[in-house]
């Protein structure tokens, strides 16, 4: 379990990183926290010629309010996501999700950008981005573009990021009063990839659900929205009836595959159970999930 030989270069600016990538004659990879890339190298599942260490690019750090958005730098560690006050105030589902992400040693190194660039559909942050209606900021030789999370994930471990481009930040729209959100998952052990996870975001107007954004993890090749269940919630008060309707509608939204520990039927069942639990918790009141 030793990686193949590779060159290593540490850069201190985004421009330097992009240049290094462009100059590489073979395959290059950007290295941030290394929590997925380094195991892949050691297992020889991946064998790039060059690693470009972006860990010291200050411009990729920091969590800040910019206009109508909460901007979270790509190098934000999961441990920071877990404890950030700004995130707790504006996107508390991310704090909740971070608590489910692996264990402290991994959270101390793994990054927001790394997780989203890898786009493992079983991991928590991709689903959160879709539920939050966030956009992904991508920087490349041609400049910076923002892609809606709904358009960002293309397939298993595949995103719209082109070779050489760098995920530089995410932008989460600031909530307004009446926004409720929650992340929860069902896993066999604390810190494992979930059997099924759910990021739920509701915008309420008075008693009525105006819009619902539900994004599941671990039920398909990408984080998966549930439009039928969302529609079942919209325009109705959040209560036993609408929750039952959303659970019933979920069959139209999800078609999970079986794996060797969980049948498709069991995964579908767990998704329904989780949806009911998350919506019930949101219906119990704003609690800390009420966005500022």
């Amino acid at each position, binding site marked *: *379990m030793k990686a*193949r*030989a590779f060159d290593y270069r540490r850069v201190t600016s985004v421009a330097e990183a992009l240049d290094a990538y462009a100059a590489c004659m073979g395959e290059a990879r950007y290295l941030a926290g290394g929590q997925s890339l380094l195991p892949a190298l050691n297992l020889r599942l991946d064998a790039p010629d060059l690693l470009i260490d972006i860990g010291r690019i200050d411009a990729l750090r920091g969590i800040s309010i910019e206009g109508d958005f909460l901007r979270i730098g790509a190098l934000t560690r999961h441990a920071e996501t877990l404890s950030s006050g700004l995130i707790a105030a504006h996107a508390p589902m991310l704090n909740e999700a971070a608590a489910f992400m692996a264990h402290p040693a991994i959270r101390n190194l793994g990054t927001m950008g790394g997780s989203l660039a890898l786009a493992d559909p079983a991991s928590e942050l991709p689903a959160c981005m879709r539920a939050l209606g966030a956009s992904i900021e991508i920087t490349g030789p041609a400049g910076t573009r923002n892609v809606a999370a709904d358009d960002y994930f293309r397939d298993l471990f595949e995103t719209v990021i082109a070779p050489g481009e760098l995920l530089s930040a995410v932008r989460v729209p600031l909530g307004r009063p009446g926004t409720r959100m929650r992340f929860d998952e*069902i896993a*066999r*052990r604390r810190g494992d990839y979930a059997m099924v996870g759910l990021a739920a975001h509701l915008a309420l107007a008075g008693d009525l659900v105006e819009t619902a954004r539900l994004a599941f993890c671990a039920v398909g090749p990408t984080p998966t929205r549930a439009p039928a269940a969302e529609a079942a919630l919209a325009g109705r008060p959040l209560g036993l009836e609408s929750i039952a309707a959303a659970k019933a509608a979920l069959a139209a939204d999800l078609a999970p595959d079986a794996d060797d520990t969980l049948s498709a*039927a*069991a995964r579908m069942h767990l998704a329904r159970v989780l949806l009911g639990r998350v919506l019930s918790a949101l219906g119990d009141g704003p609690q800390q999930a009420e966005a500022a």
Partner: protein
Amino acid sequence: MSAVTDSPSRTRYIGQGLPRPGAKRLLAGRGRYTDDVVLPRMLHAAFLRSPYAHARLGSIETADAAAMPGVHAVLTGADFVGICAPWTGTLTHFKGMRSAPQMPLPADKVVWAGQPVVMVIAESRAEAEDALELVGIDFEELEPVVDLDAASAPDAPRIDADAADNVLFRTRIEAGDTARAFEGTWSVAVDLRFGRHTAVTMEPRSLVADYDPAEERLTVHQSTQTPYQFQDIYARHFGLSEARVRVIAPDVGGSFGMKLHLYHEDMAVVGASLLLKRPVKFTADRMEAFASDIHARDHRVRARLAFEGDGRMRAIEVDDVTGVGPFSAYPRTSAVEGNQVVRLIGAPYRLDDYRADLTVLVQNKVQMSQYRAVGHPIACAVTERLVDLAARELDLDPFEIRRRNYVTDDMYPHKTPSGYTFEKLSLAACLDRLHDVMNYPALRAEQAALREKGIHRGIGIATYVEITNPTPAFYGVGGAHISAQDGCVLKLTPSGDVACAISITEQGQGSEAIVGQIVAEGVGLDRDRVRVLTGDTETTPSGGATWACRGAGIGGETALQAARKLKERILEIAAAILQAETGSLDIRDGAVTDADGSPRVTLTEVANLAYYRSDLLPPGVSPALTVAHHFAPRGYPFAFTNGIHGSLVEVDTETGLVRILKHWVVEDCGRVINPLLVDEQIRGGVVQGLGAAFFEECRYGETGQLLNGSMTDYLVPMACEMPDIVIRHVETPTKDTELGAKGCGEAGTAASSGAALNAVNDALQPLGATVSQLPMTPERILRALGVV
């Protein structure tokens, strides 16, 4: 009170919960494990492993790999022919057992996915792995034999072409007339499946073989629990003089039985060092550990119990089918686990009639062999599940049906229908103690109250009987070179301290700690003046080392008797100096004293005189202050222990997830030498058992691929999921030794999965659901509930 000395003394250590002296060193990162051994001119080995579970080997192309930078050799099966004699994992007391002979690397076919096929030796492990990518092998795929039913099918492909079928061993135990016992009475039946799991030691397997052709000496640094066994194997199979083979086990990061089996890589590394005449290191990485460390369990047991209307148990019938991989492990075989399953079922109970069939099958999976609590968890779960089902039929409480059926205190020594003899157990005492410590009536009341609210808790108990302190009845009688005795050499050093070299070994469980306590008390000096050395065949006496729960019971007794001998020696010299009778002297707190305890001369003074001023000793008094002692158990073939576990769980009937709320153990390992270490053994064992109950399973696909060979996919139990574990002790010392200690290493694992199985089924019972397969995964529980 101590078993050993009556004198009031601060050097009374047996029974005290002292911390392990080595723990601080390991915590400080100053451990020295096999992979830390770096020798001059050392090379590194890496293996190309078969991607197929069953395939014929065609041509192997190695030239490109051999030309890679840093590569010294690329070895295949043919390179070991003539230098290494094949090994066969059979024992003569398992009548009719057969297994295919093994060589370091295969010559014509591979029999499991992950089997090492080609070995590259290079300057570094990374260079060796680079070269492996250039090795080409032509495989011709053969139909793999994967699950138990497929292995026993009449038209199943045969793994060993020389064999008539895939049966490795078959046996029947029969006592009384079970068929008659089942006529016209109550009965219950189970069909239980137990998944494969593996040890997952923190430190993987590792060895450095260093052959010196000038002296014709082989030194092997190896992460193992049985250095003497490997010394014998390397000498015999490579045609070396045993006296010129030295095996050193430095710090070992967990073993659990996994590191006492011979692995193909071990022989390949030793063979490579012989061929290249240089030190060669191999350390298994985690993927290799999953692909080649022994697995354990994998049983399907169908059993039934006959009982009377008053709950009295009459008879048990058992059919155990187990799959052990493509061949039998060496040198202990892969038949022992099944053999212990069929001999331990029903053990705690009065039964007249018993019949058990065992079938051990080969299959194209990793070899399976002895792992902590060999056979015990299977036997315990089968028995205790049957007992709970009988209790339910008769509406008896689980405690009450056990109380009515246990072997009673007036029956000892007691012989079971399967042929084991118990010197003395404490079944009823442990049962009563568990009832108290669980606060059982309150738990049942709480369970009923919560049930009203839709919360499904379950309470389960499971009794175990454990095999410890084995005599040669285990392996020696079957022809294996595995010692059942231990040796201990004690030296009073010139400084008046004691150096102890003993043949039991240390893998983190505290063997050295308890030996130090016994020796310190036995001689009569401070614990921190005793240094214990283990794990080196050159500097310690030969013995059994550590397996099957023998360290405390046999090694401890050896240490105690050796300490007595040294004490006698010291007193003889002291008596000569003091012109006193040896009988009028004692040793307390590091000094020779009068009978009334007043100090006369320190051990340092005695040692100084013996070593430096032997001219002052009277003629005929030897100055020797080194003694050696060997001890072999001669009484009962095994010292059986017992105990009982309690488990409290809560089943989420919507998700199939189980929260393990609490676990209790009341155990009797005879004389407790160090209660802290016994508790640690029990806790670690319980966690391993709960891993088997809920998490751990080596899962295979249809083609014989291990599907979850990584720490991401193979779920070991972790702290967040583990409950508080409450432990109580009952002490029934064995009279076979002066120390009275029995083993406790398997006790935690033996019954925790059985107790959990009963607890989950207790929770599910009102819902009409039953779980009969370990691990109890969410999918299996949801299926049992009919949710999916």
